[in-house]
């Protein structure tokens, strides 16, 4: 029986596997082919992807990363919000990168939270003031009752 030859994995495939297993150490990806990055970057967490994009200066990775950011957007803010963003973009005939949309949404949420906290603080303050007047009136009443 003839010996069956097994084809060795290509060096590209071996490298891609190593890159995936060490994805947390990935920074500047330099001139790495987009097709290869398309196999590696989907294994990044949100923070890792952000790090890779910020470290890779002077190169736009969005042809590969945009769909990944869309996924992060959906995971974090829900599919309904993502669809709303798509709808707004098509209505305005504008197109934004999902990473920018993600960061913008984070800012909006942070602002909303700040406003909510401020409102809450304000309502507590009002309550404090009304409680003060209540105690003051109560003390006046006691003083009156006991003819002090």
């Amino acid at each position, binding site marked *: 029986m003839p010996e069956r030859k097994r084809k060795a994995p290509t060096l590209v495939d*071996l490298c*891609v596997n*190593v890159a995936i297993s*060490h994805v947390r150490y990935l920074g500047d990806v*330099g001139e790495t082919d987009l097709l290869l990055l398309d196999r590696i970057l989907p294994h990044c967490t949100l923070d890792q992807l952000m790090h890779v994009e910020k470290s890779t200066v002077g190169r736009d990775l969005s042809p590969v990363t945009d769909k990944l950011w869309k996924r992060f957007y959906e995971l974090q803010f829900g599919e309904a919000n993502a669809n709303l963003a798509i709808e707004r973009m098509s209505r305005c005939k504008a197109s934004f990168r999902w990473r920018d949309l993600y960061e913008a949404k984070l800012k909006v949420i942070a602002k909303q939270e700040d406003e909510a906290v401020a409102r809450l603080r304000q309502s507590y303050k009002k309550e404090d003031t009304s409680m003060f007047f209540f105690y003051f009136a109560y003390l006046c009443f006691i003083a009156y009752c006991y003819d002090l």
Partner: protein
Amino acid sequence: MRKEDTVKLISAEGFEFVIDKEAAMVSQTIRNMLTSPGSFAETQHGEVRFPEISTTILEKICQYFYWSLQYAKGKETEFHIEPELTLELMMAANYLHT
């Protein structure tokens, strides 16, 4: 080893790796260079220059060629790749269709 059975791969820094033609032909790009009729100077001199590939990377690639031949013969060992070389090696491997 006969000279015509070998090929010389030259790195960006000018280091020369003399390896078996059979091993070098693991790379589709080198195979095309060495087998295409006439025009390539590489075919006549048995020399291929890689001005974009550093010595460290070219050495690793040569190791891979031999490992690949062994693997095909049934010796299925692991080919170790240092993580710090990965991206550069991947780009070179991609260029060499390896």
